[in-house]
């Protein structure tokens, strides 16, 4: 029974990784950009949602918000932050230097953003956890002896809905096709009349949206928010994305869930202190054996001839 319980725990834990892994995979798959601002934006969105629920907007406008409105506010903040990142990193990446470290340039500025967001939040709201109170927080089900919390089920469902709609967006809409053409060959996309400067912000809006949604899921599920919450989720989501294959939406979902499962299973089998070495060791083995991930393709960071 315990093992089934742990499988359930793992899958539900994976849901949060999936959402963040999707954000990572979008920017890396389409823009070849390892965006380290994703974890701090995720944190930023949850923390501002908490602050809005606790204090309201700055200068006391409106007063404390209901938790739903506060979460929506957090998502909006995440999108704005993501657009700010686009404005100050990606827009300056027009020049292609053609060497092996070219994708490092936005990486550096994304780490700059990490410093700004994280220290800003620490300064404003401290480093210790805050409680995010929702009526959903304690709702749970018992399915044949297995304990499942309701918000976790909802967040898994939400993650799946996001994946399906993203996949639809990329396959069936004009914007989606434009995005995919950029992913395949940015120069050719430009030649074929895709307005790259207009379409790139779409990715960042999606990234911000995903971070915001993940922040909401986290706040509701775990009932707490804190300035360091992005680190662990971000790292595991990266692991999930790589395991599933960079740039692949289905890879992100499989990888994210797999990391959640591996995590709870290694807790179950070997204890919590082994999680870090098991998860990352597994990822290392995966990268050695199949460098492109489960669903990945070799297109990312390809050499040119």
């Amino acid at each position, binding site marked *: 029974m315990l093992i089934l319980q742990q499988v359930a725990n793992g899958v539900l834990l994976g849901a949060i990784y999936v959402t963040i892994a999707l954000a990572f995979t979008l920017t890396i798959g389409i823009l070849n950009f390892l965006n380290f601002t994703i974890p701090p934006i995720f944190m930023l969105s949850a923390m501002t949602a908490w602050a809005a629920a606790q204090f309201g907007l700055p200068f006391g406008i409106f007063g404390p918000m209901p938790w739903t409105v506060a979460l929506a506010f957090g998502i909006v903040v995440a999108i704005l932050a993501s657009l700010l990142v686009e404005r100050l990193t990606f827009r300056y990446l027009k020049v292609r*230097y*053609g*060497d092996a470290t070219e994708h490092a340039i936005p990486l550096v500025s994304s780490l700059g953003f990490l410093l700004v967001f994280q220290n800003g939040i620490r300064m404003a709201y401290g480093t210790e956890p805050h409680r995010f109170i929702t009526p959903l927080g304690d709702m749970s089900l018992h399915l044949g002896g297995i304990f499942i919390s309701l918000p976790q089920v909802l967040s898994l469902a939400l993650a799946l809905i996001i994946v399906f709609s993203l996949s639809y967006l990329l396959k069936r809409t004009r914007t989606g096709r434009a995005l995919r053409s950029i992913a395949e060959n940015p120069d050719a996309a430009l030649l074929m009349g895709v307005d790259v400067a207009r379409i790139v912000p779409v990715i960042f809006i999606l990234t911000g949206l995903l971070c915001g949604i993940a922040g909401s899921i986290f706040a509701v599920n775990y009932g707490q928010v804190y300035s360091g919450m992005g680190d662990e989720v971000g790292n595991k989501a990266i692991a999930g994305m790589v395991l599933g294959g960079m740039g692949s939406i289905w890879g992100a979902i499989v990888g994210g869930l797999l990391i959640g499962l591996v995590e709870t299973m290694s807790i179950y089998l070997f204890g919590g202190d082994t999680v870090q070495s098991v998860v990352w060791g597994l990822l290392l083995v995966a990268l050695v054996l199949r460098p492109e991930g489960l669903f990945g393709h070799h297109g990312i960071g*390809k*050499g*040119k*001839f």
Partner: protein
Amino acid sequence: MSPNDAIFSLRGVTKAFAGLKVVTDVSFDVRPGERLALIGPNGAGKTTVFNLISGAYKINEGSIILDGVDIAALPASRRCAMGIARSFQNIRLMPHLSVVENVMIGQHARTRGILELLTPLWMTRARQEAEAQLAAFDVATYPNQAIATLPYGIRKKVEIVRALMSRPKVLLLDEPAAGLNTNETAQLRDFLMRVADGGVTLLVVEHDMSLVRSLCDHTVVLNFGRKIFDGPTHAVQEDPAVLEAYLGRPAHTAATPRAETADHAS
């Protein structure tokens, strides 16, 4: 011509990308000191053949013989050490290295042993040699100049000088005259003649037929990845298969872009 005379031969070379054959059963021989042109319509597989010879791609079938040794299984860096050097269709100089440093990279294939690898270059004559080579071919630049600031024609020459620094037996030139005007092309021809006089066998992919005629004594024509002509250059224009490939059968020329893209895929 017997294969024994050849310094360099292709035997039944075949290459396919994702099931699509871009080079099919190509064989030819090159004698020492010969200047061979490899021509054909767009997408005929010329650059692919170069990539196969230099080792950028692995062949599926056949053999590549240099000086009696099959080099088809060797990694690219070993082939260079054995005497194959090349230039690129779109110039591939190292953007962050200076002119002379780019040329010095060509010497790498001649380096033997870890000690030589770890000797500071200012303790050797490598730099003087590179500068002398640049001067010998009248490449008028500052040796420390950044690549990006050089005119196109000079960059082409630098790339060829770089290739020559490995002291190749066979030099592969991929469209050396592309982008040059008539005057520059004439200069290039003289430059290449001097290279050939130095005992280097030339293998040239070129669209400019006047250059081919004045430079090369031997021509191989490819079409759809197959060899359709192999003989003296002056006989090319009379060959019916070649004429058909270049002028006739428009239906097939329309299909060529597919092969062209495969040519550039990595």
